[in-house]
């Protein structure tokens, strides 16, 4: 790999890493407020992809003009966010809240999460078919700029742009708003927070909603980048979960950093070791970091400011 080729792998690595980061935030947020890994988050991501696919397929003309393309992308973003948000919101109501009311042990939450994940996964396979589906052709995915010789496509820019906007918005929300204060308070000490007048149920369900919105959008972007299928949640879901742990689960900025790092490792692994080692390399990095820093890179709790 020459220096020129370095950029060829950096660009897709950053784009992929941004996507992982957005999904990882969903895991980290829920962990922050509930100390629970929402294993159904990968299905929130998958359903976001399907939601946008179905709506876009029915409205996309054969040859959209530039303006129409922009509108369609916006529609895709909004629809996938809504579907992802609604899924996560519903998930919390059905799979977690009843357990929380009864004070069920943490292990039961985990089983419930896995059950919900399997249910949604198979439901999607039944509803939408088991074959992958292509996103409709929204625009020609041209190369828009050359970064030190590396080609950067519209989809890659879109991916990176959306991820950045979402991450900045979330950072502001958590650190500057009342809801954000509630999330942080809950993360630090749920009992005290509730005694201090934080509406626990409301904060938790909104946290799910925010993670779901972002996960849904990631599903749309992923579909735009490749294709949509009922199995699409699994691999990115596991990687994003690992990213959340790598960054320090519960830490939002940690999730961003972890996602980016794993995206880069996966991309650079191909020219260095070969594609077969892709996941192995990513997980070696994960284990290596955790050996020296068991809390993850930015392993502070969500409660002590993101």
């Amino acid at each position: 790999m020459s220096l020129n080729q370095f950029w060829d792998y950096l660009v897709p690595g950053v784009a992929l890493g941004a996507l992982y980061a957005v999904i990882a935030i969903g895991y980290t947020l829920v962990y922050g407020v509930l100390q629970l890994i929402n294993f159904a988050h990968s299905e929130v991501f998958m359903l976001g992809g399907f939601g946008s696919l179905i709506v876009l397929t029915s409205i996309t003309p054969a040859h959209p003009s530039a303006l129409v393309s922009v509108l369609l992308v916006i529609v895709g973003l909004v629809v996938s966010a809504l579907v992802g948000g609604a899924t996560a919101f519903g998930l919390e109501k059905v799979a977690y809240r009843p357990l929380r009311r009864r004070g069920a042990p943490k292990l039961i939450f985990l089983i419930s999460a896995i059950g919900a994940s399997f249910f949604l996964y198979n439901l999607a396979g039944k509803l939408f078919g088991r074959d992958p589906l292509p996103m409709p052709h929204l625009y020609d995915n041209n190369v828009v700029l050359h970064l030190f010789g590396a080609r950067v496509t519209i989809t890659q820019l879109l991916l990176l742009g959306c991820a950045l906007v979402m991450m900045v918005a979330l950072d502001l929300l958590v650190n500057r708003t009342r809801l954000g204060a509630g999330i942080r308070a809950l993360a630090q000490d749920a009992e005290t927070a509730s005694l201090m007048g934080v509406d626990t149920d409301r904060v938790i369900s909104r946290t799910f909603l925010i993670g779901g919105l972002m996960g849904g959008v990631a599903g749309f972007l992923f579909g735009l980048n490749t294709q949509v299928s009922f199995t699409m949640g699994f691999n990115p879901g596991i990687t994003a979960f690992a990213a959340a742990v790598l960054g320090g689960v519960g830490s939002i900025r940690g999730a961003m950093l972890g996602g980016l790092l794993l995206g880069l490792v996966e991309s650079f692994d191909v020219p260095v070791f070969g594609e077969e080692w892709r996941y192995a390399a990513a997980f070696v990095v994960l284990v290596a970091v955790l050996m020296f820093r068991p809390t993850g890179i930015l392993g502070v709790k969500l409660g002590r400011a993101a």
Partner: protein
Amino acid sequence: MLRKRLLQTAAPLVVGVLALAGCSKGGDEASADGKKVFKIAYEGPLTGESAALGAHMENGVKLAIQQANAKGDLPFTLQYVPGDDTGTADQAPAAAQKIIDDDQVIATIGPAFSAPTKAVGQLYSQANLLALTSSASSPSLTTLGFTSFLRGIPNDNAQGGGMAVYYAKKVKAKKVFLVDDKTEYGVGLSGVAEADLKKDGVQVVRESVPQKTPDYTAVATEAKNSGADALIYAGFYADAAPFAKKLKEAGFTGPKIASDGTNDKKFVELAGDASEGWLLTCPCVDPTVDPDIKKFTEDYRAAFKVDPGTYSAESFDAANLVIEQLKALGTGATREALLAAVKKADYKGLTKRYHFDDKGEFPDKAAFLYQVKDGKIVYQGDVNTLANG
């Protein structure tokens, strides 16, 4: 209280009835018209990522059975049994066992894919139940000592060799980037292609990309950076399509060949523009080219409301080959007798002449080339003829 009592009495009753229904299934049951029933099974992916490939074959088998029953000259009634192995080795044993355990099943068309075949060949052999595949093409399958496995298509030596000869002679490629999908099928096929390319003095860069990789950008970039002037993909359309997209984005412009696992219109649907110009090999002929197959295509459309796909006609042929032998054996046919008869058979099907060597291998070598043009998969001809022409 009453409800509880009712439940207590009813529950064992229901269980009992269900158990009885279960028992009668294995018995020597006659069909509605009193004729003896023989079942022909199909094992292949009916759900999962490759379900579209599996459905084409299943329909071929179903159509053969329907037509044979409709003719009315059979001394028995044929029934169809599906065996869904999702195209994976881990689901295959359960699917095969279900088929084997059904005493009325006299033959299986399948397994459709190579990895499942490797996993269950021994099961079928122990049961003396014919497993006649219309698509599993990994060369190693006939070397594993299976006694009831027969292959109804040329193996991947033909396809892999065809790709190699086309690149070496026609394209005059210096360096080929070769990607397999880590499946039994993909690795076997690309192994053949690699060996044949090297024999012709062509340099090969080989990369294995497991199925369902979420992002093919890095491999596509590597293909571009490797300086290869042509590319081969050995795998299935669900992965070939995103790879094709990424190759286009990365700016790889050389010729690209994929194998029969990709040769499906789903590939074009998924990859869109990026599939344009891709070459696709197949040991299968194009059903629309041969006039003999026209009637088959019409019947197929009438029955399933879709066009026949990859291996539909081959599966139809395989089922008919079995039915013909079964007819000769009559109502006294056993699994053993049918297996022996099919091994010796010489049958002229729609797609080709069927006969098998002593290992169960299909002895004739042929591979055909197709190309994606204007969003359609267009038949080009025999790959060896094209390469040397």
